[in-house]
C-alpha cells in the first residue's frame, strides 16, 4: 500500500508527544502529517513555531484551500475544525464543537477517511477524552491503517483506550515504536 497521508489526533499530554515525534522524524520524511491537537479557543499559534524549531520537517498551521504536500506537517488552527477535501486541500469551518472540541479529531479523521480511503494512516495518541474514537473507526472502515498509542505508555490513557474499545487497531505501540514503524513505511514506499 502506498500511503498518502498520516492524521494524528492528540489531546492532553500532546505537547510532549508531538515534540518527541517531530524532533525524531528524520529530514526527508515524505508522507504529509496532519495533526489535531486540542487547544484553548484563544490559543495563538506560538507553540506551532516552537514545534517547527525542533523539527526536521516543515511544521505550519493549515491554511484554508492549502494543497497538502509531502515533507510537511500541518496543525489545525485553534477554534476551527479542519477538514480534508477529495482534491487534497484543506477546508476550515466554525461549525459547532464536536465532543466539546474545536478543532475536533473526529471531524478531521472522518473527512480524511473519505478523501484518502485506504491510503491513510490514522494515529491516536495521549488524551483524556474520547474525541477521535468515531473518526478512527471510519478510517478503519475505509481500509486505512490504524495505530494507537499503547495506553500504558501514554501520558493520559483515556483517549487511546476509548479508540481501542471501538475497533481492532492494526498496531498498539509506544511512541518510540510508532515512529520506527512510520519511518519504515515511509522509507519503503519512497524507494
Amino acid at each position, binding site marked *: 500500500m502506498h500511503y498518502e497521508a498520516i492524521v494524528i489526533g492528540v489531546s492532553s499530554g500532546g505537547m510532549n508527544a508531538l515534540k518527541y515525534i517531530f524532533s525524531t522524524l528524520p529530514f526527508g520524511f515524505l508522507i504529509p502529517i496532519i495533526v489535531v491537537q486540542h487547544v484553548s479557543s*484563544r490559543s495563538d499559534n506560538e507553540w506551532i513555531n516552537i514545534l517547527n524549531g525542533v523539527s526536521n520537517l516543515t511544521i505550519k498551521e493549515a*491554511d*484554508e*484551500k492549502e494543497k497538502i504536500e509531502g515533507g510537511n506537517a500541518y496543525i489545525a*488552527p485553534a477554534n*476551527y475544525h479542519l*477538514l*480534508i*477535501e*477529495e482534491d487534497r486541500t484543506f*477546508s*476550515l*469551518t*466554525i*461549525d*459547532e464543537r464536536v465532543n466539546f472540541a474545536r478543532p475536533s479529531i473526529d*471531524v478531521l479523521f*472522518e*473527512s480524511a477517511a*473519505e*478523501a484518502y480511503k485506504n491510503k491513510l494512516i490514522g494515529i491516536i495518541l495521549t488524551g483524556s477524552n474520547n474525541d477521535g474514537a468515531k473518526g478512527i473507526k471510519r478510517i478503519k472502515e475505509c481500509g486505512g491503517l490504524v495505530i494507537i498509542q499503547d495506553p500504558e505508555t501514554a501520558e493520559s490513557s483515556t483517549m487511546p483506550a476509548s479508540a481501542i474499545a471501538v475497533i481492532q487497531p492494526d498496531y498498539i505501540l509506544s511512541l518510540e515504536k510508532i515512529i520506527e514503524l512510520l519511518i519504515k513505511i515511509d522509507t519503503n514506499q519512497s524507494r
Partner: protein
Amino acid sequence: MEISFLLDAIYQKYGYDFRQYSKAHIQRRIRNRMVLSRLEDISQIQTKVLNDEKFAHEFLQDLSITVTEMFRDQDFYRSLRENVIPVLKTYPFIKIWHAGCATGEEAYSMAIIMQEEGLYDRTTIYATDFNQHALNRAKEGIFSNAMMKEYTINYQLSGGKKSFSDYYTSNYDNVIMNQSLKKNIVWANHNLVTDSVFAEVHLILCRNVLIYFDNSLQNKVQKLFYESLINGGILCLGSKEGLRFTDFCEKYMELDKKQRIFKKKY
C-alpha cells in the same frame, strides 16, 4: 457524485445554491442528517428533499452556517476600534454591511462598538443572510444566558468600555438585547451566492463565511463586495481568510494584515 446530483436538485427546486460549497463540509452535514433522520443513503435524502417540504426546510438549515459569537476574536475587534473606527469617524453618515450575519451576534457586537464610539446615531447596519429562520432569531435579539459569560470575556478583552451587562436584560435562561442597539440595524434576506449589489457601503464584515466556499465562488463574492464598497471602504474577513486566491488582491491595501482588514484602493 451523488452529492452533486442532490445539490443540483436542491438548486432546481428551491433556488438555494450549495454547489460550490466545500464538499467535505456538505458531506459531513449530510451524514449528520442521515443519522438524525435514520436514512440510509443520499438517494433517500434526495427523494425526501424533493417530496417533503418540511424535511427540505430542515435540510437547508443543516447546510447553512449558523454558528457565531459576540466579539469572536478579541484581537480583531481591538484592531477594528483602533484602525477602522477613526476612518469611519470622517464620514457624515456610515453604512455597514454584515454579510452572512446568521443569528446576528456580530451585528449586535458592531452596534455596541458604534454606540461606545458615539457614532451609532449616524450609522445604518445592514445585516443580511439567506437563512430566514436565523434572521428572525437575529431580529428578536434573544440569546442564551449561558453564553453571556463567554461573551463578557470576549467583550472585555476586545477593549469594551462599559459593563457588558448594560447591553441586555436577563430573564432566567435568556437575555434580550437592548432596543437601542436594534434601532439602526436593518435585517434583510440576501443570498451572497445568487443575489447582487443592494447598497453602497463604507464597511463590510464577512467573517468565517467564505471558508465554506470554493475558490471560484469566493472570487464571485469578492467581486460583489468590491462593487458594494465606496472607494476607501473597508473589508473585514475572518482571521483565516484572505484575498490571495481572488482577482481582488491588488485592489486593496492591508490595514491590518494579521486581522485581515483591507482598505479598497482609490
